[in-house]
């Protein structure tokens, strides 16, 4: 959020709270570091109440106080008495004024204590009685009340009035809550709440001008045009600025759009994904580049707990596209070759897109960037420079959630996406006796089930092919859907073809055997013969 304010020149500051328990999380470190390197106007407040659920601070960290952490980031750290409202007020208002003038992060550790359990079920048996008594004397309400009485600002009558008013407010609220009808689950309403429905109109190219572009250039093209279309679109990623990105997709972007909008990030995928949601809360758009799709694991919590659920929880869309250079066959070994789309396919609240051609890559990326919801955008590394096509020069969108029929036939249906589309096409070219529908899903979530059912009902046989390992892959879901919805029209068991259930080996000959293409032609022939 403070990044959005800073970019727009709003003299606003953000206050972000955490308990002392939360400071042991890696996100704490990443957030402080990024805020300091980007001079973000933010006050991080640690409410140190002594216990992380039942774990006392002496079992949480060894340093004396948590403000010591600030030194590691070159930022100011201030410890304050969190039970003294005047000290809190003075410190924060002074900082707020300063930070509006010169944006930077500050770390506050407010020393306080919770007089109840972590939550109401957990109790306080683990807190020594003496400690409870010690802090009871420091009660913030009581002390402030006494202070105001001593200063002659409050009278006993006035206190009585305030107490009554508080009670009335709470009682009134309670009445409303108690009178509210029981929630009755409406499944359609639930599903509608998952995504933000505000969609923009599809974009159609205004001229017929085409250029031959490689898959990678189609992606660059889409990003460049989106940067022109959306003045508040910000790109974030490792080495994407002057260096142009690991695959050179954003080469030249800094010169054209400046460093504020094309942002190099430290290596901290998690906080960057979180910043994406923060920017979205402020109404801005972000594209986050994972250097390799494999590295998304470091941002997993933010994506599958925050980006995906914010609209369902509080109608806040996450206008974020996460670009994922994915896939193998390039001899890159076990941590730079993986296919992990199934993780996100399984997560409600995310859209998952996976183009197989330059045309689709541009149109779908522009659609993803237009979409106000979080989109996980897979792009295959092996296709970057191996595939070119004539595509429109102007911006255009392809509807998310619509499959494409690559070729039509009558014997069987091959349902696939990504590199699988090219494997299927290649295998069919080598087996001219087989007449098959090839369905390129293009979007995995939401899945174009109609396109699948239509084809399978026509051919009576289905072969699902994907590069991801077989078990728990998307093919399993598709096979189940076909079994349920096309059962009466099936002439053969639904067949899945995926990679082996092993990590991806480095040696090229082994990787070749790992990939499903090694077994696909045989599976195709077998199903055809069935």
């Amino acid at each position, binding site marked *: 959020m403070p990044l959005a304010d800073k970019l727009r020149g709003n003299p606003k500051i953000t206050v972000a709270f955490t308990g002392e328990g939360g400071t042991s999380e890696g996100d704490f470190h990443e957030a402080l570091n990024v805020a300091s390197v980007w001079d973000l106007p933010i006050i991080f407040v640690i409410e140190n109440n002594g216990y992380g659920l039942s774990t006392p601070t002496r079992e949480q960290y060894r340093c004396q106080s948590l403000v010591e952490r600030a030194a590691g980031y070159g930022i100011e750290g201030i410890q304050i008495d969190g039970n003294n409202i005047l000290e809190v007020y003075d410190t924060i208002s002074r900082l707020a004024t300063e930070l509006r003038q010169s944006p930077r992060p500050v770390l506050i550790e407010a020393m306080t204590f919770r007089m109840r359990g972590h939550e109401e079920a957990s109790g306080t048996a683990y807190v020594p009685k003496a400690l409870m008594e010690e802090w009871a004397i420091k009660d913030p309400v009581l002390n402030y009340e006494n202070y105001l009485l001593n200063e002659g600002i409050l009278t006993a009558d006035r206190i009585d009035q305030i107490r009554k008013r508080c009670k009335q407010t709470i009682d009134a609220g309670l009445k409303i809550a108690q009178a509210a009808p029981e929630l009755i689950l409406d499944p359609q309403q639930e599903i509608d709440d998952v995504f933000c429905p505000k969609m923009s109109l599809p974009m159609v190219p205004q001229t017929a001008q085409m250029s031959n572009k490689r898959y990678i250039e189609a992606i660059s093209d889409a990003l460049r045009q989106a940067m022109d279309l959306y003045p508040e679109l910000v790109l974030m990623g490792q080495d994407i600025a002057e*260096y142009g990105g690991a695959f050179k997709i954003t080469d030249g972007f800094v010169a054209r759009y400046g460093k504020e909008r094309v942002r190099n990030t430290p290596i901290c995928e998690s906080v960057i994904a979180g910043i994406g949601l923060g920017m979205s809360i402020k109404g801005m758009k972000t594209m986050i580049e994972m250097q390799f799709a494999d590295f998304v694991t470091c941002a997993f919590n933010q994506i599958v707990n925050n980006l995906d659920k914010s609209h369902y929880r509080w109608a806040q869309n996450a206008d974020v596209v996460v670009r994922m250079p994915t896939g193998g066959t390039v001899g890159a070994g*076990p941590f730079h070759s993986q296919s992990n789309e199934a993780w996100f396919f399984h997560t409600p609240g995310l859209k998952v897109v996976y183009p197989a051609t330059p045309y689709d890559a541009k149109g779908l990326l522009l659609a993803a960037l237009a979409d106000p919801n979080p989109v996980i955008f897979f792009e295959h590394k092996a296709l970057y420079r191996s595939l070119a096509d004539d595509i429109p020069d102007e911006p255009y969108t392809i509807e998310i959630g619509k499959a494409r029929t690559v070729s039509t036939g009558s014997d069987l249906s091959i349902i696939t996406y990504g590199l699988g589309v090219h494997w299927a096409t290649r295998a069919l070219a080598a087996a001219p006796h087989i007449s098959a529908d090839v369905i390129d899903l293009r979007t995995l979530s939401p899945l174009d089930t109609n396109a699948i059912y239509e084809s399978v009902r026509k051919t009576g046989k289905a072969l699902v092919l994907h590069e991801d390992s077989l078990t728990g892959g998307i093919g399993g879901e598709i096979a189940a859907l076909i079994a349920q919805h096309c059962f009466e029209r099936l002439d053969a068991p639904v067949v899945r073809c995926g990679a082996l259930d092993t990590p991806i080996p480095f040696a090229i000959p082994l990787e070749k055997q790992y990939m499903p293409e090694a077994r696909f032609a045989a599976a195709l022939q077998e199903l055809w013969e069935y």
Partner: protein
Amino acid sequence: MLLLRRFEERAGVLYGERKIRGFCHLYIGQEAVAAGIATATRKTDPLITAYRDHALAIAKGMSPESCMAELYGKATGCSKGKGGSMHFFSKEHYFFGGHGIVGAQIPLGAGIAFAEQYKGTDNVCVTMFGDGAARQGALHETFNLATLWKLPVIFICENNQYAMGTSVERSAAENDIYKLGLAYNMPSFIVDGMHCETVHQAIYEAAERARRGEGPTFLEIKTYRYVGHSMSDPAKYRTKEEVAHYKTLDPINTTEKKLLEYGFATETDIEAIKERVKQRVKDSVDFAENSPYPDDSELFTDVYLQPDYPFITD
């Protein structure tokens, strides 16, 4: 150091010839760090690092042959050809990788150290990472636990000034990475990484501290890589003058000069070393060239501890 340098130079050439596939992150310029660690720690002290791992593996005693074969993806490689450049591994040499995800090895290092502490050995785990990885949350979580539990670990940040194309000045406001350690009450120092003696001294002291049960130390070792982040990086983000300056500080030249100056070696000795190293690197290439690729059946091995895990079939 010379063996590490020559090995890497050769690997670079072979990568250019496409004999080595995938990625290739070279260690050239940072050899004094590997040398200092190797001499200041025991053979049984575990070491874990990130993807720039070739030289550290050799420094830890792994044979250049098994390393070169791994780069080739051959069955005789230290990871049977399944890992490649970034994923060297040898339990018998106490070298625990070789890790491809930035920063993900840092918690593992603490885990190894915890096991050593638990078993009551006095081994110290050397846990290495680059300046880029210092910005990952995993570092923070690990530093916190390692200090809390007084784990016998030496955290080493090889600060080669550039996380790929992003200089340290651009990834953090506080350029002194060692200061991160101070925030955990951990002894933390800057070390000149261009001299193997200073590295040796710093590592030795940190190891002794850990062996005495006084917990972890954080060393920011300032070094420099002459070449790009990986073979596909031309490193245009640096000036020629900057690279030239660091080359004058070359740890190998400095050491050679010192050996001659103090009479530890003669010109003839040094020539002999150079010849021996040249031959060793050549041998490693021959070994890799003549080794077979892994058999397809290897696909199904080693995924689980059981040799014939029933779930893995094609």
